[in-house]
């Protein structure tokens, strides 16, 4: 059975097929991640035009076939093109990193409109923000993604004794249990370097902000490059452990020759 379906879609990735066609891996609002086939899209006069370029939000019509892995697109229209993401080499890096994570960790055809909104938000933020904010926005996106997938870390108290963040310092973060270990309980943590990672109050604070604030508020805070990098490594390990998928690296900056 095939029926025509209409939904919003954000193209995550294009895969060239023989001839003028392409596969489009897209995140859709109503069907989750899907693989769509766009016939003839590489021809200059293709009716798809630029609608299915990566990072573009479109409304697509496609023939949805149950139990099929790919579906043919019949029509699409651009809703938001996020044009800066195509013109700025730094923005492309972080937009690519964000959609690649989604492509990696999300299974096919599981509807999740909150996730769709998250991807829309990160692209919106990357599109309109200054270069110095891009990395931190990406880190906020990873944190929000972890929470959305069901691994929201506990950041206000110790996982062992429940000591609150205000009462005591919490120098460790447990990758496996997803939360903090306080200075009173740290003897356990100091023995297991793989599960427990050192975390600074500054990083704890920013993680907390990521979970409780919107993107536009996160933007105001600036961390040092080394704190950003530490946080990136921590989030990567955390997501990889819980999703059991490899988080793709951010591509190198093209601006450094």
């Amino acid at each position, binding site marked *: 059975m095939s029926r025509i379906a209409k939904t919003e879609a954000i193209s995550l*990735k294009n895969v060239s097929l023989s*001839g003028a066609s392409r596969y489009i891996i897209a995140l859709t609002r109503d069907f989750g991640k899907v693989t769509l086939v766009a016939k003839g899209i590489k021809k200059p*006069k293709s009716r798809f035009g630029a609608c299915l370029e990566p*990072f573009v939000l479109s409304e697509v019509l496609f023939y949805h076939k149950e139990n099929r892995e790919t579906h043919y697109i019949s029509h699409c229209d*651009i809703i938001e093109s996020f044009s800066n993401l195509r013109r*700025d080499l730094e923005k*492309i890096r972080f937009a690519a990193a964000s959609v690649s994570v989604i492509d990696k960790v999300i299974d096919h055809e599981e509807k999740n409109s909150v996730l769709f909104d998250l991807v829309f938000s990160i692209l919106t933020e990357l599109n309109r923000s200054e270069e110095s904010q891009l990395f931190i926005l990406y880190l906020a996106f990873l944190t929000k993604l972890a929470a959305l997938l069901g691994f929201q870390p506990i950041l206000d108290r110790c996982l062992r004794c429940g000591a609150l963040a205000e009462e005591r310092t919490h120098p460790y973060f447990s990758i496996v249990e997803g939360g903090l270990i306080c200075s009173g309980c740290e003897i356990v943590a100091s023995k297991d370097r793989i599960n427990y990672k050192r975390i600074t109050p500054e990083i704890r604070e920013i993680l907390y902000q990521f979970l409780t604030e919107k993107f536009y508020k996160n933007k105001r805070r600036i961390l040092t490059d080394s704190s950003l990098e530490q946080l990136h490594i921590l989030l990567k390990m955390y997501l990889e452990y819980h999703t059991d998928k490899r988080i793709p690296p951010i591509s190198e900056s*093209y601006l450094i020759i």
Partner: protein
Amino acid sequence: MAQNLTSLEHLIQILEKFPGIGRKTAQRMAFYILQMDSEGIYALAQSIKDVHEKIVHCSVCCNITETDTCPICSDEKRKSSPIIVVEDPIDVMALQKIKEMKYRYHILHGRLSPLDGIGPKDIRIKELFARITENNDIPEIILATNPNVEGEATAVYLHKILKPFEIPVTRIARGLPVGGDLEFSDEITLSESIRGRRAIR
């Protein structure tokens, strides 16, 4: 395969790796090869061996060629003509349709792709750099990478790094295809065609 047909299975597995070829088509091709006569088989095998052994990359433009330097680079009429930078050799074949003017080419053998982790070191940018450094007969560089995210990123990058040479660097026009219609064009294509507008000559 149930029977003991290892060599046939091996052939199918090789054919299956071709772009756009699935298992079924690979099987059909393998069975066709199986019933070919010896002459046909040797001609096929020889031609595959030939492309492998005879085709090299031109040391000037990186295009595929049987003679180094390639016929385009050694063409006297193209001396001092603009260089068109493209992603793949197949793009040169497409551009050769233009008859009104002679150009030279540079083939990158790929495009920058933040989505696939392909960076400047993975494509033939170093060679383009060397060519521009060593020659002072280049009046213009035309960036003709594809007008999609990756081709665009490649063009933006090349434009940046070629600036110090003080040679005009231009980008092929993007926008409406000849014979197309405004009514049926999308927002990105329309905006590109307005941004890339030019005076009527």
